[in-house]
């Protein structure tokens, strides 16, 4: 399961993800993100309670990252060891802005 909590602060949008971002949930997140990728200036992902991210989830993250590059950027916070390991294996660690 995946819980998505969203908080808007002006042009900055923060997503708090909890649970597992698996194949099916990646689509939910993709739909959720659609509008914000157009309108938001900066995205923040708080992954404190995310314990798994699938290949499809990585695709959404990369798409969001690239969409925000020309704007205020995308920041990842509070990565759990489980997700950090996946970011490391896939070289996402060197690509995303992880705080």
């Amino acid at each position, binding site marked *: 399961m995946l819980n998505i909590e969203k908080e808007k602060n002006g042009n900055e949008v923060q997503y708090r993800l909890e649970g597992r971002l698996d*194949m099916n949930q*990646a689509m939910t997140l*993709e739909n959720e993100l659609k509008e914000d990728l157009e309108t938001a200036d900066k995205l923040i992902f708080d992954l404190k309670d995310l314990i798994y991210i*699938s*290949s*499809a989830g990585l*695709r959404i993250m990369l798409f969001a990252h690239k969409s925000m590059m020309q704007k205020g950027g995308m920041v990842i916070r509070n990565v759990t060891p489980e997700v950090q*390991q996946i970011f490391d*294996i896939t070289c996402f*660690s060197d690509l995303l802005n992880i705080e």
Partner: protein
Amino acid sequence: MNNALFKTVISRSEMISCALCKDAPCTKACGKMDPAGILRSIWFENEKGAAARLPESMPCTLCAAPCEKSCVRAGEVPVKKLMERLYGEVKPVLDMDAPEHEDRLKTELCGIPMENPFLLSSSVVASTYDMCDRAFEAGWGGVSFKTICSFDIHEASPRYAALSGDNGNIIGFKNIEQLSDHSVAENMEIFRRLKEKHPTKFILASIMGQNEEEWEELARLCGENGADAVELNFSCPNMMEDGLGSDIGQVPELVERFTRAAKRGTKIPVLAKLTPNVAVMSPAAEAAKRGGADGIAAINTIKSLIGVNPHTYVTAPAVHGRSAVGGYSGKAVKPIALRFIAEMGQNPAIKGLHISAMGGIESWMDALEFILLGANSLQVTTAVMQYGYRIIDDLKAGLNYYLAEKGFKSVQDAVGLALDSVSDSTDVIERDTVIFPKFLREMCIGCGRCEISCADGGHQAIRLNEERQPLFDGKKCVGCHLCVLVCPQKAIISGGKRFTKVH
């Protein structure tokens, strides 16, 4: 824990003695599953697809492994252990079962539907009715039929030579073969029969003319006899007045003129097949577009010499004491091919043209690399010559599994996604930080190859201690990662974290 989802668990080197037999004795001896098919999937980087189609419960546990005893290299391939590892390390972590359909692979070539993006490229592998028929039955989406011409073709013997890897497999392949030795009429009959039996398969007719009239006439005949599209083979010698010594593909004016001639002859789409024997491919590609081309096919083979005999001083393949410059292909040319495809993919002047890519494709991951750099369809010869039409199984299954897992609805959605990360020069690369290597002590065998390479090819940052463990000097290391690439144990990996350089 989830490592198996994001990187390969079993490498080809762990089954390197497997001969990938025809009618493999291991599968005959097993009776419970198809170890030969599973091993072939591992070989072609489709480990997940292999794990996903394993029988639910493992039949190997109490088995005496007759598979290993019946092997043509009895005892040399750890079949049972590899099956156990697939069951133990890969199958349990899979995100999904094998996809139920291959609809994601459906695509189109200049508006004409294709079952999947994989074609045989124009060569011996697609040179007769029987061969193409068998390739279609095996699952190939189409063929680029061996180049049709009106030249008098006489082939040499032998006509191939290879650069081999340490296990004997072909890495690079050179040929001095010419074009189709059937008459034009014979080839047209083959097209008609193939199209009749396989109406949904794609027939790309490769042609080569000697003048405008011939290009036009051959294109017209192919269109009238069942070809779906025409591919112009521009790697022929230039026989025009002032272009001696070069190939047509190296002279943009001729590419444009002959493309226009072929377009005059037919309404079906026309692809210009371009040569990599140029500094940049764009001038020829743009010329083809001006001539009316609907797409680009690349790369043709690379001019090469291989294997000078130390006694006769003749290069390979030698024919009565002579040899010739010939076309180089196979896995070894893939990086060169990728670079040209990226150049095509990034060129706004040819945007919208179909890109049919080839050059060293063996596995679905090779194919994916080309797709991500802008390829719309993919062509293969050398790997088929080495392994047979059957490689289509893992090309399709592996790519389909990846697309499903990534959440792509169609292979077309992945086209060109890598292009924004490719830069023509290294100037744009950030140079203020370093990533140090990380040594996995439990895997290190203390061979010291890292020290040797760092000492003689790096910056003297690694030294073995008396226990033969590598000691690392962060003050000297520049983070080049030569040690990561050299380590025979794969016991050195990237440290992952960037540090700002201290000047």
